């Protein structure tokens, strides 16, 4: 598995965990009767801050763990090559395209709930849900392209 693939896998696991946390919190709020704008926007903040911080730390951690594993395996100074060549860039672009496509559908569906008379909170809850789902699907498509060759 190349360094890029490891990075994508870590990102995928992060976003699945974030999605799980988000869904649990939303269901808890709905069941506990605390599904209001203050709590929903706080959850928005938590999810966005989590996504940024965890992604940065996970990338650094992947780098360190990869270096340690390689050093143990080869018993030499680790030489982790994280160069991004043209194929990596193409795969990244295609993954981004998938992410944008899913996001667009998600934004449309979220707006649709609002247009159909649902409260704005539902729209905002769905917006972040589809944002995280889009990232997950984008990461899966990147991994698929890496596994297949291109």
């Amino acid at each position, binding site marked *: 598995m*190349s360094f890029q693939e490891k990075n994508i896998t870590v990102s995928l696991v992060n976003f699945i965990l974030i999605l799980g946390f988000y869904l649990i919190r939303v269901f808890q709020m709905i069941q506990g009767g605390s599904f209001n704008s203050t709590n929903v926007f706080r959850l928005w903040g938590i999810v966005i801050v989590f996504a940024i911080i965890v992604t940065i730390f996970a990338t650094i951690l992947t780098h360190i763990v990869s270096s340690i594993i390689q050093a143990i395996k080869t018993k030499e100074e680790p030489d982790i*090559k994280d*160069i991004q060549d043209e194929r*990596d860039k193409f795969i990244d672009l295609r993954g981004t395209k998938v992410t944008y496509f899913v996001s667009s559908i998600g934004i449309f569906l979220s707006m649709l709930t609002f247009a159909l008379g649902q409260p704005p909170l539902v729209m905002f809850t769905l917006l972040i849900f589809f944002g995280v789902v889009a990232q997950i699907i984008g990461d899966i498509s990147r991994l698929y392209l*890496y596994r297949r*060759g*291109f």
Partner: protein
Amino acid sequence: MGKSRIRNNIRKLRFFHDEMTQQQLAEKVGVTRQTIIAMEQEKYSPSLELAFRIARVFDVPLEEVFSYDAEAESK
């Protein structure tokens, strides 16, 4: 997406150049080994720039490394 229409002789050329490894070729042209593997399996068509760099490593004209399969186009 299946195999590309661009055929190549990279594996053969590596063999005739002192059995150059995929890693060595990757380092010479500045890509990852996975990209060389994808090219050899004809799953990935390189950019024109990378194609020229590969041809320069083997010191042969571009057409000796890459060819276009016109028959695949008509299928």
